[in-house]
């Protein structure tokens, strides 16, 4: 029985302070999946992904249901993942 190799892209997720995490994801996966992975890798397993936002080319990504490919990402692309809110004095 033939199997279809699943394509995986390497994505570089970068925290607000510049720390990086590299991992693989399917180009057809939704951005929400990428955000979930990135938050746990960058901010710890206990971090809640809904408290974070993803920036692609400096713009906050509001639709997390589109795929990596639809969002214009490619193999080796970088995204920034940062907390939605910052403390304000």
């Amino acid at each position, binding site marked *: 029985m033939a199997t279809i190799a699943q394509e995986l892209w390497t994505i570089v997720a*970068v925290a*607000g*302070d*510049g720390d990086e995490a590299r991992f693989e994801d399917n180009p057809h996966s939704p951005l929400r999946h990428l955000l979930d992975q990135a938050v746990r890798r960058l901010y710890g397993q206990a971090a809640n992904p809904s408290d974070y936002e993803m*920036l692609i*080319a*400096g*713009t*906050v990504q509001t639709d997390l249901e589109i795929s990596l490919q639809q969002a214009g990402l490619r193999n080796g692309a*970088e995204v*920034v993942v*940062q907390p939605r809110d*910052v*403390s*304000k*004095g």
Partner: protein
Amino acid sequence: MDTELVLAVIDRDWQVFIAQAARLGLGAPRRTGVEIGIPVRPAGTGEDYLAILECDGYDVAAPLLDFANPEHPDQRGGPCWPRMGSAPMNQITIGNRSVPIICTPGTRGYHLHISHVHEAHPRTTWRLSAVATLLHRFLTQMGPYQGRGV
């Protein structure tokens, strides 16, 4: 703090900083000694601004964020800042100079302000790459942009 040591710490953090600035769409940082200039544009405008990070004392002390007139970089302070409608702004006097501050951890003005001087934050809070992210947030997510001068 010894200037040579400060320059070495800036060197240590430089590549990560310019990479962060690039991926966030900030202009290419230019460095003169312990001072860094970053050409920027607030979201929704074609107006040019020049953010300045004064890094004397880095990274024991956070960089001091100010803005300069892009045409005359010696002119600094409130009139050179973009006015972002929802930014939490305040003011601090350093020496005989009044500098606007964003009331968010990461730049020296915040950490010197009497309301925050007793807070404890790790140095990573004001790592150059983190300050680039704060600057980007200020320019793109604390609007609307309302013109020049605070």
